[in-house]
């Protein structure tokens, strides 16, 4: 950004790919021994393993997400969305929320797709309802929940209802109280190439690099917390009614477990009530550290600051209500 006033921009030295690669290889050669020594402690090793595994697990889903969102940007005309969704934004929210059931993936895929929907003219409130519901109510997630809770099949229904309800409430809240200046709708005009194919490629590359960096921040934080939260803390609050619900909801935020796997972890937290575990399952796919980081990257920090805490509160309250009713 400092180059704006320089007329002779081209002459300024910038490290090119070659210099960059050379530096990378030097670091590789001299750094390895030192780095491996650094990772001697079991806690650091476990943290590094968890960091790498979150990134490795999420990357294919992120790739899928940016390919889908780039395809929406390049090949689906904006008019399609105007026909597919009700004109009335208030009605569009539940329709978009229910449509989340058809995106089979976890939360990393839905953030770029929601961004792409907004920039193609879908009402932000509807796109946000889709963003929240897609990772929580798709068939893969519901089946894995059913498998994880063999004795409590109602858990599947409770998860479906509570997640859909939370996403619709959040969409309506945004419609009623949301301000346009809070959200940065991803702009695509600089990514329009000479052909649809070029637009597709530019959008996909840009979105991946962009969101990928934020995924790394999220995975890094999750790995540190995963290793740092003392296990005794988990058992200490298990038998407190309301506190345990809030605690498991917070744990979901910290652990950043993929929505396709969180049911099994919830099942293993058997010292907690079913309602507390429902909160874990409803909050996890909607608010977690890597997701907050991804949302801040795609929609701006001002958005994430408001959206994530509100979603957390709504998701916990919905889980309490649905848990009391169904479980």
């Amino acid at each position, binding site marked *: *950004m400092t180059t704006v006033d320089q007329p002779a921009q081209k002459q300024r030295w*910038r*490290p090119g*790919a070659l210099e960059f690669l050379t530096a*990378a290889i030097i*670091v590789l050669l001299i*750094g*390895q021994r030192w*780095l*491996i020594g650094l*990772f001697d402690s*079991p*806690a650091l*090793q*476990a943290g590094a*393993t968890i*960091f*790498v*595994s979150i*990134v*490795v*697990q999420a*990357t*294919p889903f992120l*790739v*899928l997400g940016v*390919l889908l969102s780039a395809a929406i940007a390049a090949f689906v005309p904006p008019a399609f969305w105007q026909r597919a969704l009700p004109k009335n934004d208030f009605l569009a929210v539940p329709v978009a929320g229910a449509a989340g059931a058809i995106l089979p993936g976890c939360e990393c895929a839905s953030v770029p797709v929601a961004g792409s929907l907004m920039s193609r003219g879908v009402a932000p409130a509807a796109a946000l309802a889709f963003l929240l519901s897609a990772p929580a109510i798709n068939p893969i997630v519901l089946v*894995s929940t059913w498998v994880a809770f*063999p*004795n409590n099949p109602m858990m599947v229904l409770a998860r479906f209802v509570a997640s859909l309800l939370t996403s619709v409430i959040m969409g309506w809240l945004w419609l009623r109280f949301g301000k346009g200046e809070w959200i*940065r709708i991803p*702009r695509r005009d*600089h*990514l329009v*190439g000479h052909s649809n194919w070029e637009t597709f*490629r*530019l959008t*996909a*590359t840009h979105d991946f*690099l*962009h969101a*990928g*960096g*934020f995924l*790394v*921040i999220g995975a890094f934080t999750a*790995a540190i917390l995963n290793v740092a939260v003392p*296990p005794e803390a988990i058992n200490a609050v298990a038998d407190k009614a309301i506190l345990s619900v809030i605690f498991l909801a917070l744990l979901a935020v910290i*652990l950043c*477990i*993929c929505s396709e*796997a969180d049911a*099994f*972890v919830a*099942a*293993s937290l*058997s010292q907690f009530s079913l309602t507390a575990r429902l909160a874990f399952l409803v909050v996890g796919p909607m608010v977690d550290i890597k997701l907050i980081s991804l949302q801040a*990257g795609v929609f*701006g*920090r001002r958005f994430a600051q408001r959206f994530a805490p509100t979603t957390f509160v709504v998701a916990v309250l919905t889980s309490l209500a649905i848990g009391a009713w169904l479980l």
Partner: protein
Amino acid sequence: MTREIQSVILVLLGGALLRISLSDVYLRYVKEGMKPWLIISGVLLVVGGLLALAEVLRAERQKIAVLPGGDEHGHAHGVGGPRSAWLLLLPVAAIFLVAPPALGAFTAERQTSTVIQPKEPAAPPLPAGDPVPVTLADYAARAVWDDGRTLKGRNVELVGFVTPNAKGGGWYLTRLQLTCCAADAIATKISPQDVKDLPANTWVQIVGQWVPGGEINADDAIPLVKVTSLKQIAQPSNAYE
């Protein structure tokens, strides 16, 4: 960040995914079923990066301004713009330089054992074999949720690693299970009777028989096994069950 560097980062990350998924290293981090998806996304990233690099080089040769992107575009990316892409070098470095090992005793020690209650209340009989190889999760489920009925009188072969029992002394034969990735690992622990102490993370193969005495019908119960033979083995290529 220049478009050149962006494309190199894509190639490096794709290369890192290919490196772990074409060998068995990826099994330290995710499930076996992820392999094709890791290969596909690795290839896509490498190809995407190379296409972008080719475009930059072509533009350079023709002395034309590179079409959109890079740090040229004016929208407010703020601190974290595509500059955030630098962070993708962190997992690349971790994979190529450190290649962190599969989770082990550190993780297992921090959790209770988890024995998931099977959907079928009565377990089917064990397959033939003397000794018959059984996974730790299967052994624990049969011992805890079916009162050891199907294990009685059978010689079983169990493979796992040593997790020291910080409270009571001795150690647990342990295996971790992944559902999706290493962040969701849960542990199965079995208590071998009358064994000498071994260092944490030692991999062992035990042949022995089920004995009653462990807690039952609780998903954090730890079943017992009477040991006839114990030998140290190398870590299996997939450390998880």
